[in-house]
């Protein structure tokens, strides 16, 4: 009897210590990860406050703190214009993309009609052709219509939005999770399909609407490939990504490196703030959509 008791006690103590050991290891890993993940961001912020320009390798901690880079950004360059262009694209892309994506995904998820499967397959196949290539033609047409160069923001909004219906997957996954019996009940009560959409489903879909708006808003801030091609190097039509990349080219690097950091801070702060504020919806969208496919 006695013997048995002590072994039970021993094993529970063993389990406890092994658990604390495991937790300690995990804490260490997480702390190391936090440092690794945060390092570049602290680096950018610190280097942006360096007074004057500097070569990259000399020091991370500024020799002298100051706002020179920020001042230079707004007085010597058209940064405000580029920032405005990108924000303009962000707002309108969010607006139109949400319309296209939601209408497409809602239809595919909740309505059954002839050709639905065919439509989905067609979009799947079309999505496999590298979309960048289609820009060769689109750029020629936009050139004729005057939608490249300094009008590039408008052209880019059209490019981002027009076929965004093909990215319906995540929100379709969300709509799939809403019970179909809601629709049926409303239909029995005499609601038209429009009323079901507008009065029954939309009020339940706040998370996915916000998710889609958020994704649309973020897209132009991160797009580099399409923007660079359509903008054609015109300083009036630039978005921040394309312009800031040119600052880091080999011969401009030492002059512009700290200014790049300052610009990065200005770009990152509002976008990050919006994102973190709406984080909850993003997480819901990612987890829901990925599982559903």
């Amino acid at each position, binding site marked *: 009897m006695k013997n048995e008791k002590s072994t039970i006690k021993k094993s529970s103590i063993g389990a406890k210590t092994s658990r604390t050991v495991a937790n300690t290891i995990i804490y260490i890993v997480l702390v190391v990860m936090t440092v690794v993940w945060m390092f570049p*961001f602290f680096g950018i912020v610190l280097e942006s406050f360096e007074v004057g320009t500097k070569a990259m390798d000399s020091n991370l901690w500024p020799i002298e703190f100051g706002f020179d880079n920020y001042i230079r950004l707004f007085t010597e360059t058209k940064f405000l214009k580029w920032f405005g262009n990108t924000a303009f694209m962000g707002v309108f892309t969010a607006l139109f993309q949400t319309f296209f994506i939601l209408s497409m995904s809602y239809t595919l998820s909740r309505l059954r009609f002839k050709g639905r499967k065919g439509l989905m397959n067609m979009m799947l196949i079309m999505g496999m052709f590298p979309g960048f290539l289609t820009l060769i033609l689109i750029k020629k047409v936009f050139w004729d219509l005057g939608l490249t160069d300094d009008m590039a923001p408008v052209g880019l909004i059209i490019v981002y939005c027009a076929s965004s219906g093909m990215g319906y997957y995540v929100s379709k996954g969300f709509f799939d999770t809403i019970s179909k019996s809601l629709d049926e009940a409303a239909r029995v009560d005499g609601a038209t399909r429009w009323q079901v959409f507008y009065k029954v489903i939309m009020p339940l879909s706040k998370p996915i609407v916000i998710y889609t708006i958020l994704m649309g808003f973020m897209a132009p801030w991160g797009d580099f490939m399409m923007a660079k091609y359509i903008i054609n190097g015109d300083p009036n039509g630039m978005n921040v990504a394309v312009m800031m990349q040119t600052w880091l080219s080999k011969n401009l690097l030492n002059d512009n490196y700290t200014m790049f950091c300052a610009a990065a801070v200005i770009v990152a702060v509002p976008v990050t703030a919006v994102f973190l504020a709406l984080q909850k919806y993003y997480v819901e969208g*990612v987890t829901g959509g990925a599982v559903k496919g």
Partner: protein
Amino acid sequence: MKKLNDLEYLKLSKFKAFLYNVKLFFCSIPGWFVKLGLSIWALIKNCAFVIRDEFADIGRTFIKGNWAVKLSFLIFGLGNLYYGQIMRGILFLLFEIAFIVYMFIIPDGGLHDIKLAHLFQNGKTIGDKAGGYGVDPNDKYGAEIWLEGDESTRVLLWALIAVIFIIAFIYTWRLQVKQCRICMDITASGKKIKSGKDDLKSLLDDQFHKTLLTPSIIGITAFTIIPTVFMMIIAFTNFDAAHDGYGTLYSWVGFENFKELTNFGQGGMGAAFSSILGWNLIWAVFATFSNYFLGMMVAIMINKKGIKIKKFWRTVLVMTIAIPQFVSLLYVSKLFAADGILGRLFLNWNLIPQSMLDAYQRGFWENPTTAKILLIVINIWIGIPYVMLMATGILMNIPQDLYESARVDGASGVQQFTKITLPYMLFVTGPYLLTSFVGNLNNFNVIYLLSGGGPPNTSISYAGGVDIGHTDLLITWLFKMTAESASSQYYMASVIGILMFLVVSILSLIVYNVIPSTKNEEDFG
């Protein structure tokens, strides 16, 4: 190969069971092709049946129909008008008038464009007369000006639109004939025919999908389907900077460009394509699976019972998603450059093996091997947060009693992971793995903003008029070819685009047939 039943299978040792599974996989490959053949045959047969039924239906409609129906075979919408569907009738009629006017009546109309494009006639130019400098006919002093000619891109695009218009015309013809038949049937059964008002109302009800889809379909047709078809056609031309279709017209070359892919000489397309594709596949496999497994581990660590401030750890990782990617990518790429802070650090501490460095390869980005490894590592830095978020959601959905019963049976933590967590995750995230694999195949931002494709690969360089580097993917190669090279070989970009399309679609086809979670869409609802 002999198939074992369950009992026999369980008797095998672990190693033999593994061998058996591998064998089974390879033996089933011929079966796939047979299945593919059968399904193609079934498709052809179905098509034949559909066409036969269509013609039978058209014939019956013509024989049974009255004069209005018979005439509507020539004049669109007459049948609808006769049966009182004024709105539909007028729309059909307007469509026909628009078609005839566009195709035949206006000068330089659709038919003219199709003729001018000499569709797929090898050796012929697209358009007849290029623009160029010449004597101004309206100027009495004979000044030189730019005389407008045909513009290949424009001609080809309009020809394509005209062809699409013709297809739409045939479809509409069939549609209105069918509607005549439906009207005939309804009158015969004594019911009331739908009026224009009913039609409009049903757009918010039974036909609601048409209302919702129309804007998207128009957008997708104009900005994806037409440009995609157009760019695929470019693969059969010689469209590049020297034949820009403006001063010099480009012409049809048939399969010449595809033959170029078999050129395995120095700077040849074949050598370049196969070597880039190789690295592209390696990259996609490593990038996808390293992120997937590490991200899952991080999610498990954060979710473990007893770990505090979970929200903080998650937010730290989510920061990388929130900050625009180009900012962090460009900054990190400079950190690791030869004179960047970390790059210098690693060099000073001799953390890169000296054998990898010679006089010209001082930093991470200057050596092919270190550049590739660094790309994958930085991609982990970017990718883990996404997987972590997704995995967190799924982990919470795994029924906890599974773990409890496993614990009672004495399963260790590792066993719980391999027997419960991993299979569940793989099952649920099958589609995610596929999309992220395809996304990584075409991961332009990470490669272009970090390494820019470098260091230069001299053995295949200058294929397609581009300085190709060791870390270039097909998509960055394509980008450089079209946007950054002086010779702008659009035709070659198009060929590569088609091949990328084939690679991705074949991979997806295989994966979709193998993973279970994609098959039953309705099961999840």
